[in-house]
């Protein structure tokens, strides 16, 4: 037993893959279908089985140089050619170049009578002659279950099918056998019993009137494969499978900052968004989400880089016109080829198709920045879980390419914003929240940074202004007991100014008063000093005159005395 196991694993290691060339399918099968074996592709009607098979053949010829054979039971060669002509496949040319052989097998039950034993050697011979004719490496049989509908002897059929698949293996061709989905089985007639190396299931379901396509690798003997249901789309390029690329979170990270296009916001974020990060701008209606997106787009284009703008709400012309009103000339960038709009109504097709077209657009355009405005419109076509899974894919895809992505999200109602966004916010690196504040008869826009991974960022609220000259951020009025914005802020600032002015004026007045008083006192002091001086003078004068008077009196007395003593008569005179 162990020996057998070892031998088996050696065989597995040697399993060679045959690339289909179908976008995504080779990724989830890690290289393609098992080479030299048959793969069963099953699904309901219209799920894209024939297309997948045809692409396998045509891409095999075109991309891998492997001629192919297509045996059709349901459509004629002409019908097949017409069906895939819209994909740019020219089957007639491939047939002319002997790279492709198509055989339409017509079975008409009413024409056929069965009697006795028979084999399907005719089928083998036809296949074989075609394989030899073009040197085919790939074979498609679409869909062999038609045999069951037209031939009644199931015993013979089953034996012959077994022989057919064995024979195909011996031929060494890589084959696709298509089958119709049964009630509770993969195929209506149990083909999976015979073709068991690889089984691919295509699903086409309609939920809420939106059709979505899925692809699942049910089994792949001897190979690892993605086991999920992968969204699939069919467009003008054919079938595309969209693998969830986040099999590993190993995308490169960048420390480079990209400007937001708004000076104040750059400052708040400490330099701008990180390159290749994902940014969510959420807010209720009319808060300026698209404006922030536009500012970013404008900035990117100004730096000479490309920006891809997915508009799910407005027509490009309308966006251009509206943004011109706040000073952003997007038309210029469109003409220069730096800005590309991809505008479709979200309900036009399913999430997968959106995702797929996003993949294609990004791959084609190679933008530095992708803007999706708004992602919430996608809720019309998918529930939150699906949108989250789609966004996960988009974000991982974009991060892998180093593309910065900005998503806007419409939230309804003011205060539930943070909750309603929980589903997708965890995917975002930076989350800007815009909020309308209604006060004193006006609405004002406020901007918060709710989170920004890996960078210091402002915790402050800013008032968000849309002006003719672009977007401006103003610091809101944060005063005692109030955070004010808009005219309330202006009014409050005016009040503050006048208050300050009044205080300044009264201080000046007081100063003047004091100065006057001081001057007055000084003057009084001067007067007193002068008075003192005069008094001193007077005193001095008084002193000297008294002395003179006393002197005189003394002299008079002496005179008198002298006079009395000498001539008293004279004294009476």
């Amino acid at each position, binding site marked *: 037993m162990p020996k057998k196991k070892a031998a088996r694993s050696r065989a597995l290691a040697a399993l060679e893959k045959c690339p289909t060339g179908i976008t995504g399918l080779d990724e989830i099968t890690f290289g393609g279908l098992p080479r030299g074996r048959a793969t069963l592709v099953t699904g309901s009607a219209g799920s894209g089985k024939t297309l997948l098979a045809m692409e396998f053949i045509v891409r095999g010829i075109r991309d891998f140089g492997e001629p192919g054979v297509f045996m059709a039971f349901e459509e004629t060669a002409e019908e097949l050619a017409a069906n895939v002509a819209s994909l740019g496949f020219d089957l007639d040319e491939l047939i002319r170049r002997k790279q492709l052989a198509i055989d339409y097998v017509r079975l008409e039950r009413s*024409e056929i009578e069965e009697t006795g034993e*028979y084999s399907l050697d005719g089928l083998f011979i036809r296949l074989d002659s075609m394989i030899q004719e073009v040197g085919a490496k790939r074979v498609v049989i679409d869909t062999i279950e038609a045999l069951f509908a037209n031939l009644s002897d199931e015993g013979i059929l089953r034996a012959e099918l077994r022989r057919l698949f064995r024979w195909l293996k011996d031929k060494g061709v890589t084959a696709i056998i298509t089958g119709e989905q049964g009630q509770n089985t993969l195929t209506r007639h149990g083909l999976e019993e015979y073709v068991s190396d690889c089984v691919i299931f295509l699903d086409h379901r309609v939920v809420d009137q939106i059709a979505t396509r899925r692809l699942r690798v049910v089994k792949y003997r001897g190979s690892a494969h993605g086991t999920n249901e992968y969204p699939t789309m069919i467009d003008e390029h054919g079938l595309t499978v969209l693998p969830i690329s986040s099999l590993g979170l190993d995308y490169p990270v960048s420390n480079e900052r990209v400007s937001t296009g708004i000076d104040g916001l750059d400052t708040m974020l400490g330099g701008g968004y990180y390159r290749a990060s994902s940014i969510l701008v959420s807010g209720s209606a009319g808060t300026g989400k698209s404006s922030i997106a536009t500012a970013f787009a404008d900035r990117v284009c100004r730096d000479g880089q490309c920006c891809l703008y997915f508009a799910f709400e407005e027509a490009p012309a309308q966006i251009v016109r509206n943004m011109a009103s706040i000073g952003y000339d997007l038309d210029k960038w469109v003409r220069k080829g730096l800005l590309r709009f991809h505008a479709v109504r979200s309900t036009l097709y399913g999430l997968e198709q959106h995702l797929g077209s996003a993949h294609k657009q990004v791959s084609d355009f190679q933008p530095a920045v992708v803007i999706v405005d708004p992602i919430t419109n996608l809720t019309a076509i998918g529930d939150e879980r699906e949108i989250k899974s789609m966004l996960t894919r988009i974000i991982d895809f974009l991060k892998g390419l180093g593309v910065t992505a900005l998503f806007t999200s419409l939230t309804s109602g003011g205060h539930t914003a943070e909750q309603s966004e929980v589903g997708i916010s965890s995917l975002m690196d930076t989350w800007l929240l815009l909020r309308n504040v209604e006060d004193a008869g006006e609405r004002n826009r406020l901007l918060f940074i709710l989170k920004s991974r890996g960078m210091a960022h402002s915790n402050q609220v800013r008032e968000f202004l849309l002006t003719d000259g672009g977007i401006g951020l103003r610091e809101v009025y944060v005063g005692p007991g109030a955070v004010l914005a808009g005219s309330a802020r202006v009014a409050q600032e005016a009040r503050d100014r006048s208050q300050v002015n009044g205080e300044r004026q009264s201080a000046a007045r007081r100063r003047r008063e004091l100065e006057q008083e001081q001057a007055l006192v000084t003057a009084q002091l001067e007067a007193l000093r002068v008075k003192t001086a005069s008094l001193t003078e007077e005193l001095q004068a008084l002193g000297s005159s008294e002395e003179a008077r006393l002197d005189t009196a003394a002299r008079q007395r002496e005179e008198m005395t002298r006079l009395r003593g000498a001539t008293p008569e004279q004294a009476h005179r």
Partner: protein
Amino acid sequence: MPTKTERTKTPRRSSRKTAVEPETWNLRLYVAGQTSRSIAALENLERICQEHLAGKYSIEVIDLLKDPKLARGDQILAVPTLVRKLPEPVRKIIGDLSNQERVLVGLDLRPKQLEPS
């Protein structure tokens, strides 16, 4: 196989020529190699024709191993397949033709509803 084919073919053709009739049966038997099943089919066919279409039929045996491309023209999947080219419409009977009743029905030599009786 080739010798047998030639041998069978020639007399039938001549028989058709001699029997100038408005209704000529042009039958084609597709086989893949000379297997016991194809030999049985041819034998069964010849017997039935002798019994029911004596003198107004021709049988052409085509070996797909030799002419694989011919399988496409008459939309042959199973072998042996007997194709009634004429009279129209084209009918096909697959198998070794061992059930004579069904062959007759398939060739429109016997109406289906009369089969039980």
